[in-house]
């Protein structure tokens, strides 16, 4: 990971001057993303800034990089994993290189292919590029949203940066809260792209290119998750498993390309275990793994981690997260997420990257993305059961399949099945709703809105669900219901929360880069053509992945019950664990001052949490969401 920032006069006339002081201030905000080097470039109508985390070509490859004829300059955050192959092809076409960096490959790719250059990049990237001949500036982000990229337009200037905090020095009036985006977070866990929690600050959406030309800023979606039932593979299940096997090996191998050592996160789940096994068998590098452990058994996966470490003989480090660590690291975490969060799970991830860095590693591979790409989440299973149930909503037998998902489900219902239907049978009457799979999660999350202040409720004039529906492509309606679930999950929770608040931000805060083999676009494009019946056989998640990779893993890993990654929420945010520094944000005085949440209701919520009574999921999410929102207002808006 690196950090990039810049200012471009949107009129692109040569009279505009971009001050290097402002650029320097912007870059300073990104020091954690790139502590190794920095660079600034100013031209009459453009200024670019870069903070570097050196991973490939440690001696050259400084940025901003300028082409030999001086007509193109760029800043680039990320990695192009196929840069070796692209470079060879470019050399054959007559291009001459002065460095061995992937940054220079990006520059030459643009020279050779123009705006289409991005189609051939296999990697994770956020790029700002100025083309002097065409008088054109582009901002482009990787396909799935691994590298962050934000922008705003103010006084005819396009201002962009890897993190929102780096935009701030260039703004005349500071940041303001986007209340509609807050409402979206309190529904989907993340704002609907391109919104952010701040007014007039947007992200470049995953798979998108912004082109500023002739005073016009145009968006172009160069890639998206595509699912077409007519395009499903017709080959056998075994053939598809074999192809997935080969693709994952290749996706992993090119992600080990670096001039520094590369490690891996190991949770003990199937995905990270597969990944670590591939490194062991095909990586050709020492196997070095890092894990989180929790003092509380319900969150801990140590036994599975130990089993795999013994099986693959990895050199391993782990970090024991104590409940008190969550609250103590919470404010710093929110300063890095730059957005409210509803669960505390990012906090330990930020601690894990500090363990990586302390061991002199700055790159890790992670298994993120496998659940979205290959069908692993409970939400997909639950949707299948609810679809099955919706065929006969009055059936007493169909919903019993829920027991397979929730073995602890003891809901009574000797009566008419009313409770079961009300709590688990949401939208049974609208099984064709394009977001059928996600409606229960969204309505559960939205229950936290009962803590809004009356003023906030009155100000919200846009329905969050309507906003996300409006963001869906029309093709979504044609997709298989299972693929629809995958699409929505990938575009909302994965891109908006897992890869950002829980991913990039928690890695970058300690100057660590994450790499994601399951999110190689070739793996995604292949998997999107796998028939859903091979992804989830009955209610057996990631069936094809297991078929492809079981040979490398101990049986207890392959057949284990899936355990979603979680961290202590309610317990960490109540009683003695809720340190005064945090409790201060929940006082009547602070809540009334910010006036987003009802101080009286929050008082009772905190009282319930402090009493040791279990909070429901929406209540726990409300507590974390309110606290993190208050911190965002304090650190980004009031300060």
């Amino acid at each position: 990971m690196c950090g990039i920032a810049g200012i471009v006069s949107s009129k692109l006339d040569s009279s505009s001057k971009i001050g290097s002081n402002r650029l320097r201030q912007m870059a300073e905000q990104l020091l954690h993303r790139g502590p190794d080097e920095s660079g600034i470039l100013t031209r009459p109508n453009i200024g670019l800034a870069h903070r570097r985390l050196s991973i490939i070509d440690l001696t050259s490859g400084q940025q901003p990089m300028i082409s030999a004829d001086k007509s193109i300059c760029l800043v680039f955050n990320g990695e192009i994993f196929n840069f070796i192959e692209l470079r060879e092809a470019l050399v054959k076409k007559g291009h001459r290189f002065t460095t061995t960096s992937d940054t220079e490959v990006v520059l030459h790719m643009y020279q050779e292919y123009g705006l289409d250059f991005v189609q051939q990049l296999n990697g994770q990237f956020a790029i700002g590029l100025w083309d002097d001949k065409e008088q054109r500036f582009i901002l482009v982000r990787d396909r799935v949203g691994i590298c962050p990229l934000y922008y705003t337009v103010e006084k005819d200037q396009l201002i962009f940066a890897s993190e929102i905090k780096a935009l701030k020095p260039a703004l005349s009036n500071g940041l303001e809260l986007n209340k509609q985006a807050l409402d979206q977070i309190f529904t989907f866990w993340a704002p609907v792209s391109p919104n952010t929690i701040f007014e007039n600050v947007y992200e470049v959406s995953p798979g998108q290119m912004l082109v500023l030309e002739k005073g016009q800023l145009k968006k172009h979606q160069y890639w998206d998750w595509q699912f077409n039932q007519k395009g499903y593979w017709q080959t056998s299940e075994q053939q598809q498993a074999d192809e997935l096997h080969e693709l994952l090996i290749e996706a992993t191998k090119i992600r080990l390309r670096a001039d520094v050592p590369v490690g891996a996160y190991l949770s003990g789940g199937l995905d990270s275990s597969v990944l670590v096994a591939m490194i062991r068998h095909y990586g050709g590098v020492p196997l070095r793994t890092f894990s989180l452990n929790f003092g509380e058994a319900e969150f801990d996966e140590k036994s599975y981690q130990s089993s795999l470490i013994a099986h693959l003989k990895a050199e391993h480090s782990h970090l024991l997260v104590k409940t008190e660590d969550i609250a103590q690291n919470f404010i710093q975490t929110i300063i890095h997420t730059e957005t409210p969060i509803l669960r505390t799970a990012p906090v330990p991830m930020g601690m894990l990257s500090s363990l990586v860095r302390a061991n002199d590693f700055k790159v890790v591979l992670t298994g993120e993305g496998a659940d979205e790409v290959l069908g692993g989440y409970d939400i997909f299973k639950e949707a299948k059961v609810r679809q099955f149930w919706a065929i006969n909503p009055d059936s007493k037998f169909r919903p019993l399949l829920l027991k397979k998902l929730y073995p602890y489900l003891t809901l009574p219902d000797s009566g008419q099945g009313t409770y079961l239907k009300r709590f688990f049978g949401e939208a049974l009457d609208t099984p064709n709703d394009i977001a059928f799979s996600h409606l229960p999660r969204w309505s559960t999350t939205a229950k936290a809105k009962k803590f809004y202040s009356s003023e906030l409720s009155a100000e919200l004039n846009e329905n969050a669900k309507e906003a996300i529906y409006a963001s869906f492509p029309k093709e979504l309606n044609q997709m298989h219901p299972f693929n629809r679930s995958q699409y929505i999950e990938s575009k909302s929770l994965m891109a908006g929360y897992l890869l950002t608040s829980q991913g990039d931000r928690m890695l970058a805060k300690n100057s660590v880069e994450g790499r994601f083999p399951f999110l190689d676009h070739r793996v995604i494009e292949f998997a999107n053509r796998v028939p859903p019946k091979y992804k989830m056989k009955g209610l057996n998640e990631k069936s094809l992945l297991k078929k492809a990779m079981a040979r490398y893993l101990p049986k207890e890993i392959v057949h284990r019950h899936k355990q979603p990654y979680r961290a202590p929420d309610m317990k960490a945010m109540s009683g003695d664990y809720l340190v005064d520094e945090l409790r201060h944000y929940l006082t009547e005085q602070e809540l009334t001052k910010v006036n987003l949440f009802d101080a009286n209701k929050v008082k009772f919520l905190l009282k319930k949490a402090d009493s040791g009574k279990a909070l429901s999921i929406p209540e726990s999410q409300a507590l974390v969401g309110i606290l993190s929102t208050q911190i965002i207002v304090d650190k980004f808006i009031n300060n």
Partner: protein
Amino acid sequence: MTAVATNQESLLRNFILENYLFTDDQSKLNNADSFLDTGILDSMGILELIYFLDEELSIKVESNEMIPANLDSIDNLLAFIAKKQA
């Protein structure tokens, strides 16, 4: 709330108000309000309510009694408790 609330009624109302409506404003809950229709209780809330009946009022709810007719409003709860205590 009735003009003079019984102890049981007060206990139940305050339990619901404080733990699920997060307020002490008595006007926010009518005894006839359906917990399901108003979304006051979710699946865990129902189980907590059953636990509360057991712990605070020594009312054991059998599995065949876990139905909205017994548990879905303050009125229903009071009638159910009266029946159990009869």
